[in-house]
């Protein structure tokens, strides 16, 4: 499973989301804000190859608009830093 886990970690890292060690037995992992450590949710390690990056990219607008991610605003800030134009459009769309 380490290859998929590496892929999941790499997909979340630019957004400032840390994939913590095992959340519960075996196959599920806790997502935390890389800045303040708040719990953000969970993910499992049986995603298909390539899926993690696709999912994170698909939800970038939600992070930018503050509909996903930490209340401290870290992921929203990261989304702006990654693609300012897309983030601005997302904020306008979800306002």
């Amino acid at each position, binding site marked *: 499973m380490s290859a998929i886990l590496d892929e999941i970690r790499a997909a979340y890292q630019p957004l400032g989301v840390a994939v913590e060690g095992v959340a*519960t037995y075996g196959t599920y992992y806790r997502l935390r804000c890389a800045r303040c450590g708040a719990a953000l949710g969970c993910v499992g390690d049986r995603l*298909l190859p390539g899926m993690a990056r696709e999912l994170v990219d698909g939800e970038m607008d939600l992070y930018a608009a503050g509909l996903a991610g930490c209340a401290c605003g870290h992921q929203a800030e990261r989304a702006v830093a990654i693609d300012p134009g897309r983030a601005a459009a997302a904020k306008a769309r979800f306002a």
Partner: protein
Amino acid sequence: MASGNMIEDERDSERGERVRGGGLWPFWTQIYAEGDPLPDLSCKVDRPEYNFDEGDDLPEDYRGLLMKMLRHEGERAGNKSFLGLMGTCIEVAETLAPDAAARLIKSEYLAEELKHAIMFHRIAVGLDPDFALRDVPYAHYAFHLPKETWADDALFHFLIDLNGAFHARDWRESSYVPLRKISRTVERDEFGHSEMGYHFLRAICAERRGRALAQTLLPKWYAAALDMFGRSDSPNTPRFIQWGLKGVGNSEIRAAYKTYVDRKLVALGLDLPDERQGRRFL
């Protein structure tokens, strides 16, 4: 709360029963009282009639298919990965639920899934004690998708638990008697879990930003839910049907499921995703 529910609450109170989930739980009762909510999935092809009970000698092919089905089902007390999934449900509720009432409803869900773990554990012990204790992580990616918003959790329950209800509906005529015996309980419970997700989803979609959130997340869960029925051309399907372990093929049950969920999603004001978008198992 509707006046009908209040009357029920008073009756429960008179009987000394505790009102559960703020009077909403279980979610299936009101809908089943109006009739069978799920489509007819009875077998339409000629096939031999088999009945196998616990302790019977099972044909090798039959046994293999039954075990395969139960590995996918996964809700067993001896399956540590299932208990792990339940652990994430508690964590998600703690982290993402909007209020204590929602967390309480989720606790009723967990209690009911743990009841299923006992029921399927007993079926597993009756088949193979080694299997009953085996850890079998859920293989399908639908059980591993990230949940980062309350809308993710609502969509997971509405769509993925409903998949369980459709499969349990299919077991009403199962040739494996222990499975047939628990089918109605599991079906209505899983249907109720789906309705719980729909209840949360309705609240989310009542607000414009919430509906936009649900709309953005919908393709991820919709594709996974349709994929969960397996490939339409699976070579195992005719064998499952011939042995009486399934009533209909993957494409037929998927189509019935899609008709059902599409109607409910449209009622929420959501646009339906393209049914081929993001699919891995057509």
